[in-house]
């Protein structure tokens, strides 16, 4: 056990799985890096340095720099998965996923069903999401609801470094396509992460705070803010249960429903656009299955329904934060 950043946790998960299973390969833009760059061939390791060191250990046969053609290399990764490899493709920003929707939605997600369960597609697509990076509207979205919408895809959204390593190893060993969401603002967050490989099962929510007065469900980076809000509310003698679903597909509604049956009050915190989001999804399920337990209307804490602004001042306003979660909690408890 030692302290590792979110970035190191992902790097370690990739390296350990590549050592364990020779079918695991890594591909994407600049995942090896250095071609045409000054210094070593391992100069970059991706734009955030997440894959740094892998090409040195595993060579260019297993760490593939691809052209800037998402439609091409995501299709190649899906095909490689269908024919026996276990590729981890790095699609730098989830915002670019639009150019390869067919490969993901209509091919990877469908193979298991179309071939009567005889085909599996063990591909992982790692991708960065989220605002706060001053990267404007084309590099800041949280598009996990779109992938959650498609049956046949699994969607993981780790909330800290410990979760990131365990969920990524699980994703690599899973026989279905997994879209793995990494928030840009979490890469330097540090947590206790075991040195040994470990897996966190999909579809099992993590209760990060136990409480009886109010339930907060939060996703990805928002879990951190929800925990902060819960700790501040605890000082005011308000006992808050915080639930991190970890994966949105499969989704652990049971843990949420059990908690809401106890608290009768729900706040959902989602950094995605507010329409057809995880916030609306969770709210709808709770209304359908636990309506009689609700003591107050459900509150959704989300950004406004606009693209992420480039102005730093506006971007800061846009992102849900601890203060807004506390305000929502108080209004639900009033």
């Amino acid at each position, binding site marked *: *056990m030692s302290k590792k950043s979110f970035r190191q946790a992902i790097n370690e998960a990739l390296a350990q799985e590549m050592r364990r299973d020779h079918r695991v390969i890594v591909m994407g833009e600049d995942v090896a890096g250095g071609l045409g760059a000054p210094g070593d061939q391992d100069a970059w390791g991706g734009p955030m340095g997440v894959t740094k060191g892998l090409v040195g250990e595993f060579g260019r046969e297993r760490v593939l720099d691809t052209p800037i053609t998402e439609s091409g290399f995501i299709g190649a990764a899906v095909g490689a998965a269908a024919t026996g490899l276990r590729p981890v493709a790095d699609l730098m920003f989830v915002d670019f996923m639009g150019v390869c929707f067919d490969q993901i939605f209509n091919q990877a997600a469908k193979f298991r069903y179309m071939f009567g369960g005889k085909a599996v597609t063990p591909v992982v697509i790692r991708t960065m999401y989220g605002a706060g990076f001053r990267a404007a509207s084309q590099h800041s979205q949280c598009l996990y609801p779109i992938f959650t919408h498609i049956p046949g895809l699994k969607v993981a959204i780790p909330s800290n470094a410990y979760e990131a390593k365990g969920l990524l190893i699980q994703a690599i060993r899973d026989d279905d396509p997994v879209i793995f969401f990494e928030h840009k603002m979490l890469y330097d967050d540090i947590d206790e992460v*075991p040195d*040994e490989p*470990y*897996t966190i*099962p999909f579809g099992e929510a993590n*209760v990060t705070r136990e409480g009886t007065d109010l339930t907060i469900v939060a996703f990805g980076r928002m879990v951190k803010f929800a925990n902060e809000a819960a700790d501040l509310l605890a000082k005011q003698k308000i006992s808050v249960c915080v639930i991190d679903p970890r994966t949105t597909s499969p989704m652990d509604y049971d843990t949420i429903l059990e908690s809401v049956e106890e608290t009768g009050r729900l706040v959902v915190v989602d950094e995605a656009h507010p329409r057809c989001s995880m916030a609306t999804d969770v709210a709808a399920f709770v209304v359908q299955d636990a309506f009689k337990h609700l003591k107050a209307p459900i509150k959704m804490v989300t950004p406004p329904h606009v693209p992420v602004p480039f102005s730093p001042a506006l971007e800061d306003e846009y992102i849900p934060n601890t203060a807004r979660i506390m305000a929502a909690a108080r209004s639900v408890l009033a």
Partner: protein
Amino acid sequence: MSDAIKPIGMPKWGLAMTEGKVNAWLVEEGADIAAGDEILEIETSKITNVFESPAGGTLRRKVAAEGETLPVGALLGVVADAGVTDAEIDAFVEMAKAAQAEAAAAAVPPPAPEIVQAEGWSARVLTMAPEAGGALPLLLIHGFGGDYQNWQFNQPDLAIDRTVYALDLPGHGGSSKVLTGADVPGLAVAVRSALAALGVERFHVAGHSLGGAIGLQLALNEPKRVTSVTLICSAGLGPEINTDYIEGFIKSDKRKDMKATVEKLFADPAFVSRDMVDDLFKYKRLDGVLPALRTIADAVFAGGHQTTIFTDKLPTLDVPVQAIWGEADAIIPVAHAHALPEARRHVLAGAGHMVHIEKPSDVTRLIGEFVAFASG
């Protein structure tokens, strides 16, 4: 400054503890207390426990407020005789706080466990030793599903006059998850090879639950090497075992189920914190742990009963053996302590299977006294 002023400091329970939260004072200012009285409830990130006063006298000052989180060693209260003036106590508190600030600036990291390469497996071992010399070493062996940290309340005090090793069994904690043998004799061989790697020739052993049976097996195998055996809520003394607990430990994958399972270990279920349950999940998720636990459980508790029982071998064993049990043990019946003569068994009230965590000072004292007695 009067020697009659005795400080009460934040205790250090285990390596990971750097600070503790004062949940509640259990005595009032002005009360007369004896050493060993329960005076505070302290919460750490791992566990909540009562703190027994290291000193006797009148509790003259509560320095720490309830709800306050303070570093290990911080002054919590002051015990002194009636003859000491309030002004002297004020001066003492001020001086202690200044010293505390200095100590915080020069904090040293706690001792860390090391990995020892044994035959066919690697063992994680935490070694604590007195600064110089010391008597025959003591080996601590945890039970099924545990690790060296189970001894966090006992190991530091036991290591005042001898080297104390606490190891993680194969498949447990930070040891390798490959098993060279899964039954009690097989695990004893593995432990012996770890001791050889540590260069330990003769030793005392104290084992909890499954670890007790392993300790006893070590003594039966090599009675000349083992100078005493302390069995704590031990396996190996009768067929009964609560296999609901064993199965629950392996199979629980929901926090609620795991919490209910682990609560069976304690007389007071409040000992089970969310961090304790979290840590157990983190352990169970490591590659290889579940198959290892399954294999050990199938070998040691086959068909719902303990497979290795040593009661008929005890009368002829030429090594002193004692048993310590929690009266409310819900895992292995306290009646198994009767395998030992009355003078060699200690049943502690108000404790369950984890008696060394629930009654740490009693268990530490009993081990220490027995080890000293057996050393002659």
